[in-house]
């Protein structure tokens, strides 16, 4: 394992601080294996629930000048199918590979049920998606906006997860992100993933004078949200003791460094795959290494959270 990039997180050690974010290439073992091979320290599955879901019609994922906008609508093959894929990934990638399982539920109880099923394949982490903005018309406001919901779901998932650590994935769309992170901490969460997509936002085609996304609105990700994500990570790291997976708009080693300097333990990348493809993980690892070598830095710890000092 690369000494420079070696990352310890919740009792496990990963070869790189980079993680594949949920929702991007996280549907099958073979694509997640490719991302691990390219140098990601861990991969997060697409969020899955109890039942298969088709999601919204297309266009569901669109690039625009500043990033991506998506309203996939939590399409997923359901927990049974995902457990199969993740088992396969475990076999292919080895027992030490980093696999994070992202779960969601339509009700508080469902979060617990999906988690109980997901722990069967012993993921390294259960990531709890309380923050998807694309299905609010169906599920009501995202749970992540409500303190009581987050508190309750955190407790339920923690109980269902047993010895597997739990990260709550937060949205910046809540009255106070700091308060929300503290609630996660107080209720037993082991980590925070910040942030999910921002918005929702929308795009209109001026030719047909109609919204372009089939769902009209969708979550915004990619470069447009990097400063928002960075500030969220900075705030959570400054106000809780929980380790944070920094997520949002990272496309370069410099942006990954900024996340780590703001305090992130791991840095996850989703939309970056659109800009730099799968090899982005290889390139960022390489650039992080040379940045550290140039400064004679031996370990990520040396500069993690420096901006708080």
């Amino acid at each position, binding site marked *: 394992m690369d000494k420079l990039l070696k990352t310890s997180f919740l009792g496990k050690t990963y070869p790189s601080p980079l993680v594949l974010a949920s*929702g*991007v*290439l*996280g*549907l*099958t*073992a*073979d*694509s997640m*294996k*490719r991302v691990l091979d390219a140098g990601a320290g861990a991969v997060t599955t*697409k969020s899955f629930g109890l039942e*298969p*879901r*088709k*999601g919204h*019609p*297309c*266009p*569901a*994922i*669109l*690039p*625009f*000048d500043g990033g*991506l906008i998506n309203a*996939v609508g939590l*399409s*997923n*093959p*359901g927990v049974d*199918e995902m457990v199969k894929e993740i088992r396969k990934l475990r076999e292919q990638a080895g027992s030490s590979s980093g696999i994070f399982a992202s779960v969601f539920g339509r009700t508080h109880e469902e979060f617990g049920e999906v988690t109980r099923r997901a722990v069967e394949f012993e993921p390294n982490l259960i990531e709890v998606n309380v923050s998807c903005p694309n299905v609010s018309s169906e599920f009501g406001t995202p749970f992540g906006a409500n303190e009581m919901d987050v508190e309750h779901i955190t407790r339920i998932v923690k109980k269902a997860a047993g010895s597997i650590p739990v990260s709550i994935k937060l949205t910046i769309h809540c009255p106070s992100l700091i308060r929300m992170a503290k609630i996660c901490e107080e209720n037993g969460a082991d980590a925070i993933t910040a942030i999910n997509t921002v918005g929702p936002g929308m*795009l209109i*085609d001026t*030719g*047909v004078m*109609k919204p*372009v996304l*089939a769902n009209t609105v969708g979550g915004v990700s990619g470069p447009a949200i990097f400063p928002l994500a960075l500030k969220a990570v900075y705030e959570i790291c400054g106000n809780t003791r929980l380790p944070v997976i920094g997520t949002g708009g990272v496309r370069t080693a410099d942006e990954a460094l900024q996340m780590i300097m703001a305090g992130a333990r791991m840095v996850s990348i*989703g*939309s970056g*795959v*659109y800009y730099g*493809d799968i090899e982005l993980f290889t390139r960022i690892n390489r650039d992080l290494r040379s940045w550290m070598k140039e400064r004679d830095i031996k370990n990520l710890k040396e500069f993690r959270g420096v901006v708080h000092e």
Partner: protein
Amino acid sequence: MSDLMRTYPVLNVKSHSPVMKSFYFRQPVPDIQPGRFFNVWLPGVDEKPFSVSDVYQGIMEITVKAVGPFTRKMMDVRRGDLLGLRGPFGRGFSHHQHALLVGGGMGVVPLRYLARQLRQRGFHFEVLLGGRCGQDIPFQNDFSEWAPTTFVTDDGSLGYKGLVADYMQDKIRESRLSFVYSSGPEAMLVKVMDLAAQAGLDYEISFERYMKCGIGICGQCVVDGSGIRLCKEGPVLTRQEAEKVSEWGLPHRDATGRRNNS
């Protein structure tokens, strides 16, 4: 950037049969390789992938067969309507001499544009096309005009009666063909790959999977055995790439990502 959504007016519509139409647009980007595809957005309905069936004198053609809700709605599209186009996505065919083009059903669509380019280069090639019936096979005149062409249909209504694969072996044996291009139903493609490999021929084959984003990030079109994303590293695969895939002939994943076993 061509990945961004933009709407274009339909310049013309041509009917091939009651359930098959071509739509013509101003060519949105230069140099479109045959085999690549566009995501076509019917505003207010849905967006689906379609191969380029031709690019000629600055006009691009897309050819659609009505098989379900989206493609049936496409049959109502009129000249002047605005459709969204994103693309071209994926990798297309490269150019080879002495090739056999093997197409089945709507698989003949990308081969039509390939045939135009091979002919423009003065390459020798031959064509073998199959379908359920004669009406199922578009562009018969173009293919016949540009190259020696054999038709095979299930019901014998055009050319030989039978399956494409039955005639492919003879074609390869008889002539000096050294390369195979193929596109069509997967059962046919599996046979074509087998026969080509047996004959020691190199090939490029176009595959289909359920697609959502077209830009290599949603993971919907990934095939097992390789992690190849057909929207990005395909839809056309080389022999080396295709041989790595372990799921040819299996049920495809549906919109949920589940293998559709029905």
